[in-house]
């Protein structure tokens, strides 16, 4: 039967909350088309997560808790989704734009010869056809695309669509299925996993505090024996000035390419053309001039605040609020003012 399928992303028993946004979009389209909405949940805690999926809008949930799917691997996950897509011939398959969602839906779309559109920020249904909007050329222009195949695959951007209100009275039919591949057929083995504790994911963040080259102008002096005083000053600035502000706001820490390339902070914090593209409610750019490469990654922020010593920095043109000043004075003052106001 024709339907909408949403792959609910579960990593070691933790659901990626953007999956609820995918279910929100999926339930809107399923209602419009008058078809059921099926959620797929694999791996640890799948049966428990299935109840949440129902509360967020799924009519049916397919779970698989086979041992081969306990820890995420592309092959067994893709094989099972491909089988379910072939069995059900859905109109639409939805997923989220993490490393998992991107590789998984692309693989299954290739297997089933279906049209795939990623980084989707808007969807308009024209009858059976979906016209989607996505960024191209690093977010410098937009493109509109639609699938010409019977099943369309969409990978949505985080924070682009609203989840349904959680309805605790809602239940779904839950069906357990087996895996498609046996362990012996799978060519990849997970040797180890090292989690990064307390990492705030930039893509999901509601607030981001970013710093650029200006973070190196730290008045603090490095201890004796430090190899590179500038790098020490910048790293110390991220730890003692940027992180405390992020902590008060519950924000993620971002950085410009200049700061990453200079070794001030690790690459996974980079916002911009060769880093992450983000769309938080609030983006605070401190000591970032606002090069076009950086703008490409953060221009979709709902509100931008710029803090820079140079009143002519291009970042001020994009900012709703601007403060001209030394970030080493402004950020700690901001942290204090927020603590006072927010009662922390």
């Amino acid at each position, binding site marked *: 039967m024709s339907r909408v399928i949403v792959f609910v992303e579960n990593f070691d028993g933790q659901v990626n909350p953007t999956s609820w946004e995918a279910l929100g979009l999926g339930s809107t389209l399923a209602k419009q088309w008058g078809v059921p909405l099926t959620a797929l949940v694999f791996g640890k805690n799948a049966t428990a997560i299935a109840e949440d999926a129902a509360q967020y809008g799924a009519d049916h949930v397919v779970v698989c808790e086979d041992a081969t799917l306990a820890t995420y691997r592309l092959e067994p996950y893709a094989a099972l989704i491909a089988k379910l897509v072939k069995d059900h011939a859905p109109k639409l398959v939805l997923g989220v734009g993490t490393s998992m969602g991107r590789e998984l839906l*692309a693989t299954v779309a290739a297997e089933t010869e279906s049209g795939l559109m990623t*980084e989707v920020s808007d969807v308009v249904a024209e009858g059976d056809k979906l016209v989607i909007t996505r960024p191209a050329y690093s977010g410098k222009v937009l493109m509109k695309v639609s699938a*010409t195949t019977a099943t369309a695959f969409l990978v949505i951007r985080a924070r682009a669509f609203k989840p349904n209100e959680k309805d605790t009275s809602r239940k779904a039919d839950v069906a357990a299925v087996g895996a498609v591949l046996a362990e012996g057929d799978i060519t990849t083995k997970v*040797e180890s996993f090292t989690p990064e504790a307390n990492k705030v994911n930039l893509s999901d963040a509601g607030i981001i505090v970013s710093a650029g080259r200006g973070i190196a102008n730290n008045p603090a002096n490095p201890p004796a024996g430090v190899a590179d005083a500038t790098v020490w000053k910048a790293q110390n600035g991220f730890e003692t000035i940027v992180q405390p502000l992020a902590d008060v706001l519950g924000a993620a820490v971002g950085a410009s390419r200049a700061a990453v390339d200079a070794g001030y902070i690790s*690459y996974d914090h980079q916002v911009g053309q060769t880093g992450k593209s983000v769309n938080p409610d609030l983006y605070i750019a401190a000591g970032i001039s606002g090069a076009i490469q950086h703008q490409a990654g953060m221009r979709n922020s709902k509100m931008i605040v710029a803090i820079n010593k140079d009143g002519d920095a291009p970042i001020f043109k994009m*900012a*709703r609020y601007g403060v001209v000043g030394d970030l080493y004075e402004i950020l*700690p*003052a901001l942290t204090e003012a927020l603590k006072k106001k927010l009662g922390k």
Partner: protein
Amino acid sequence: MHIVTFTRSTPDTTAKVEVNGKGEVSWGDAATVVNPWDEYSLEEAIVQAKNTGGKATVIAVGAELHNESLKHSIAMGLDAAVRVWDAGIDATDSLQWSTAAAAAVQKLGDVGLVIFGKESVDVGTDQHIYQTARKLGWTMLGYVSKILEIDEANKTIKVEKMLEGGKQVLTATLPAVISVMKGINEPRYPSFIGIRKASKAEIPVWSVADLNVVLPAKSTELAGYSNLPAQEVITEMIDGASAQEKAEKLVEKLLEAKVL
């Protein structure tokens, strides 16, 4: 081991990219460069070919524009370059693109590893990477931050992979397709000898007929490009006698706007 990597020419990262009156994407007089993510995959292909005593071939699927990035690749030290192009390929359709790419790898015959850069900045996606692996029927390892070991005798590869929540170490069987992250290596600059070699290189072009493959029907249809909606931001500068005063005023504004 024979290692293949893919590249393409994309507008310079500092270029202003716009949609012109005809609805085409234009970057004015700005130069094209090697897709920034491919700097890392090209370097990794050179390094791994050397480590395994093999060779490295670079392929571009696309129009003549992409010869520039192939020449840059040869100048960096890639052993051979091939361009795949045919009026029948719609390069914006990832299924057609990956079918042609996979067929080109098959035509080379003895390839053990395909290395991609994490994504292409022009089309803004990485889907063609995973789909090429699927079309080849090879193991796919995405977001690789380190190749820990290639064991040719046992046909295995061990890598470190970046996930949102941490790092995974995986082993997989070869042949495989991997995509590599920024920071996996320090890409080299082309050498003088390399640039001379590149300037003389004749790059063969393989058509769909040469690849002996049937392309799938188009799976997507481009409805058009548009410029970003103009953002009408009225910037309000926050003044004050001290950092504390500026900070307090800013917090008031943020609370009023309900963004906290």
